[in-house]
């Protein structure tokens, strides 16, 4: 933010009564391509038997106080979500799972620009907390998990000749395939949508975060096994002396914990996943029998 402070003070000839206007030209550069500028002014009148310095000091204090209030009204509120994500308590599934955290997921952030001067612009960064929570959760849920690095999607092959046979399944592998021998499947979680509500929006004394995830479970060669979506919700009530940022962080942590709980209780109920787990088990029994 750039601030220019100017003074248009008129001195009283008797040196006991000063009045005038302090003006503050400001230009606030928003980190997301918007910028705002304008002038705030503060008319003042100070009675000061001791002279100009005290009046100036008092005016500057009032000015700073007013500026702080005005700046707080149209500020950007940024929350980097952090919290406690415990390990799940359950029997791990006998599956070695690769997990791909795409850059959009590991760096996920939600941005909501202020609609008016009374509102604040919100940036909620959930990426780091997402990776922390899901790593902890999947480590406890499966017998072994491996982080698989995402890679750029390969460039599509040239147009096949007219007489050539079309490919059976066009597969775009978007992850490192060097783990293929070790893994049973690869899970790709994505944040499809995030919505938030604060008391200033709803007049309800609750901060809320709602998320929709999209999951893709694929074979190591990239063939799809299942695709499904899942929602998560977290809320926290208003509390004395708790800032908006702290409340939104707490709501996001509750939502992430809810996402973990929902995933654990719903994973095996996805029909395609249930079928795949059944096939995997029978395949292993056959191999053991042989």
């Amino acid at each position, binding site marked *: 933010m750039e601030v220019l402070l100017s003074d248009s003070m008129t001195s009283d000839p008797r040196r006991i009564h000063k009045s005038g206007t302090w003006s503050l030209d400001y230009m606030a550069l928003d980190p997301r391509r918007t910028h705002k500028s304008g002038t705030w002014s503060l008319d003042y009148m*100070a009675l000061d038997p001791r002279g100009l310095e*005290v009046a100036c000091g*008092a005016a500057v*204090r*009032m000015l700073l*106080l007013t500026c702080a209030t005005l700046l707080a009204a149209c500020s950007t509120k940024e929350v980097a979500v952090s919290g*406690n994500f*415990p*390990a*799940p*308590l*359950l*029997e791990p599934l006998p599956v070695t799972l690769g997990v791909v955290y795409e850059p959009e997921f590991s760096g996920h952030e939600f941005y909501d620009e202020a609609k008016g001067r009374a509102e604040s612009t919100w940036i909620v960064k959930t990426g780091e907390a997402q990776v922390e929570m899901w790593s902890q959760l999947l480590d406890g849920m499966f017998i072994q998990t491996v982080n698989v690095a995402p890679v750029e999607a390969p460039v599509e092959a040239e147009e096949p000749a007219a007489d050539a046979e079309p490919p059976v399944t066009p597969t775009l592998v978007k992850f490192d395939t060097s783990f293929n021998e070790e893994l049973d499947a690869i899970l790709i979680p994505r944040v499809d949508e995030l919505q938030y509500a604060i008391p200033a929006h709803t007049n*309800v004394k*609750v901060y809320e975060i709602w998320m929709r995830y999209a999951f893709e479970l694929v074979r190591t060669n990239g063939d799809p096994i299942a695709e499904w979506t899942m929602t998560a919700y977290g*809320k*926290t*009530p208003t509390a004395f002396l708790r800032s908006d940022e702290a409340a939104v962080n707490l709501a996001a942590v*509750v939502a992430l*914990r*809810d996402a*973990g*709980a*929902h995933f*654990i*209780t719903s994973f095996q109920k996805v029909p395609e996943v249930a079928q795949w787990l059944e096939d995997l088990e029978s395949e292993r029994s056959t191999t053991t029998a042989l």
Partner: protein
Amino acid sequence: MVGRLRKRAKYDNRALVGAGRASFNAAAFTLLLLTSGCVTSTVDEMVFNEPIEGIGDASVVILGRRHASDYETEFDFISCVSKHITARDSSIEIIDEIEFVNTLYPWFEPRTAPLRPNDIDRLMLQKPVAEQIAALKLEYMIWVDGSTVQTNSAGSMTCGVGPGGAGCFGFGTWGNASDYEATIWDFTDKAEVGRLNTSTSGQSYMPAVIVPIPIIAPVQGTACDGMGDQLLEFLSSKH
């Protein structure tokens, strides 16, 4: 004569010190009375199967219900009830709510928490959960559902800040109401063995002549004491 006078002076000093302390205590008590609003509290109790000898070396957990959309039981209320019980009977072991919920994640999250005693069987099908609960020697699980809300507010207050200082003038009043219900589950028998209800309401005031003087009605604190006392009667062999 001098000695007597000295002695008397000594007594007088003592009396003065004593009177000073008494007046300080009286002033503090009066201030406390003045700065505390009035609270009305009602406690209902329904117990089916109270332990006669207390709970012995078993443990208890008190958990808040948080699955409703418009309110959730405050963590500090649960903590207050737990502290109230352990302060009066230190032999009762109460597991910290957050520690319990984290240890048994994700089975006591708002989405997954058991709503009826019969749901415990489903929970115990998870071998690690059953082992953990056995290790904790959990005998009773107490679910507290409710919240404290502001019911009304009136009055106005104006505060100003100037170069010479700051001050407020006006009068404000607001009411609070607490309504909490505790349901006691016997974890061994997987049955509900008691139900308590505490309803509390009170009016707080804040007059302000330069300095605001809050006269707060301890609504939630009274509800905490009421519920804590009733649970203590249930759990403790000493009460």
